[in-house]
């Protein structure tokens, strides 16, 4: 059974998923399906987000006040929920991005000390 593995992957992604979602809003209000699509496409299908896990993440962000939700009409004239970044969320995106950069950089330096040394 893969119950354990699935849960493991969600947990692994949890912190980053929030960041990825916030990033997709830079282009403007989007609906749930479009968010999932955007993440998949832009990561060139490397990141397979379990689509369902999008919803708890979205609601977490709403609760924190980083995104807001409103009704809207989509490109093919269907009613849908649209999520958009709030001012607070935009600021948070900057914070999270720089945090991620620091983390990624630090991990890279640990994993490949020689390369980073030669670069610098």
């Amino acid at each position, binding site marked *: *059974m893969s119950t354990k593995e*699935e*849960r493991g992957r969600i947990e692994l992604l949890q912190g980053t998923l929030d960041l990825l979602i916030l990033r997709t809003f830079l282009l403007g209000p989007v*609906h*749930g*399906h479009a968010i*999932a*699509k955007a993440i998949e496409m832009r990561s060139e299908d490397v990141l397979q987000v*379990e*689509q*369902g*896990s999008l*919803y*708890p993440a979205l*609601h*977490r962000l*709403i*609760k924190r006040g980083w995104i807001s*939700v409103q009704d809207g009409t989509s490109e093919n004239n*269907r009613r*849908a*929920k649209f999520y958009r970044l709030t001012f607070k969320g935009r600021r948070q995106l900057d914070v999270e991005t720089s945090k991620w950069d620091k983390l990624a950089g630090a991990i890279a330096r640990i994993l490949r000390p020689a390369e980073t040394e030669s670069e610098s």
Partner: protein
Amino acid sequence: MSRRKRMMDNLDRDIRDFIERETQDNIERGMPPEEARYAALRKFGNVARVKEETREVWTILWIEQLLQDGRHAFGLLHRSPTFAGAAVLTLALGIGVNTSVFSLLYSLAVRPLPVKDAASVVNVYENFRGHFRRGVHGSPYLLSYPEYANFRDGNRVFAGLAAYAGVSLSLRGATSEEIAGLLASCNYFSVLGGDIARGRGLSPEDCRTPGQGSVAVISDGFWKRVFGSDPAVLGKTLALNRQVFTIVGVAAGDFSGTELQTPEVWLPLSVAPHLLPNIFKNANWLALENVSWLNVVGRLKPGISHRRAESELDVLAHQMDANYPGRQTTVSVNSAAYFNNPEMRGVGAWVATAILALAGFILVIACVNVASLFLARATARYQEIGIRLALGASRMRLVRHLLTETLLLALMGGAAGLVVARWLPPLLVSAVPEMPVTGCAHIDLTPDLVILAYAFLASLLAAVACGLVPAFQATRLELVPALKEEGSAVSRGMGRSRLRSTLIVTQVAGCTVLLVMAGLLVRGLRHAESTGPGFFTKNVILISLDLANQGYDEARFGFRARPARSPGGPAHCCRRGARRRGSLPRRQHDQRDDSRQQGWGESANGLGKRCVGRVLSHAGNPPAAGQDLH
């Protein structure tokens, strides 16, 4: 709440919309509609779990789940009352024993004295350090009268400071009778707020002249027992230790004073010289500066902390140290309780820990018992758990659910345990033979917040102890066989039966240890009762006489005692302590000063030894070596 509801209402539609879009995408990629829909659902994941996780964002989930689990747990009680009853009963006994032991210890050593506004009532003790000699009559932490008077008059922190000493009195009536009395400073009743039912309490005039003050306040019990509730008791006289006292008051029935054994009479402290044995050379106890014999209890002024009172009394104690080079005195002030003397508390803490640990053992056995019940039940619910796991319930969620059931049972057990704790101690006391029932203060065992908290904590611990392992065991199963009915036999594999054996082994081992200990204790007691003292006891009678109280002097005793000091000889004294079989130990006369009195020997180890003349020869067993007592 409304926001949460709105968010959850939208969620369903949003998810449906999401899946439709994904299906649409799949169709556009060329999938047949049916397959496209399944692919979309697969990719989305478990819809039910997504909803649950999203709901978690908006709720304090554990409360919601707790309510849900609670409802389920009540359902369980309904469905299998026999199982629930057995578990509750077992836990009730376990928790009940623990709570009753705790409430007994708590009532003796922590609970405030049964007096008015007990929170501001404190005990005062002195701790001495350094090289010095001091007479001790009772406990070394007690005070002498001049020390007490100095504290009483010199402090600014107490609304009142009272002193008292227990004394055993010989009451002359139709027959002589030994009764418990308390020599009390004359502010005793006003400091403690003790009510007087008839007449008056002790008043300052009673204590004015040392050696005088022949009045007595009697207890409600004494009034009923000796005077038959005579309404005209005031003004009658009592002959106590050949002194005549006039009864001026009867204490209220609910006033039991500061001692576990309610005194039958309270006498002014000023009569101490006449009533206390003449053991420290000086007959006038009130003038003795360097003898510990007085308990001190005080009522703090509002807003004064114990620390503040201590530091103020410390200063006074230091001044008194000036007369005793090498002695450093510190004062400790702590909330008044029955067992508050640092000497008793030092030993008591160990005894209490040991007793609580023993009681804890019983709870452990009860828990193991209930744990095996739960394990057996989990086997019966094998399929139910399998189905719930298959439907997407997480294992933690199921464990929590099972634990809630245990918790409910444990809390019910705890509530029943409180009932057990209420009737168990009196039952035990009445089952112990030869307990002095008369005069013993009513020990207040009514559950208060502390006792309730203890029972609650014990229940929680019990719930975790007996629920956790079975819950984890029950949820660790192979899904596919669990769902097929016949699978249950296959996969209840080794682990579970090993656990069950472990539980049984623990239980049997625990019971054995307890039984062995109980057996040893009983045997020890029996042994102590029947141990031969080393000589033939046939036709030898031990008599304890308080002749000195009746004014007998050494010549009229008819026998003499000699100090057990002569070197090289065998033991001269025949009994340690002045103790009658089957009664509480009487106040020990602890002699650390160089003094002696009729009937009392010296002792090197601080314990008084009562000696009678020529015991061994009289008993027909002349000593094999050395000399007999003379």
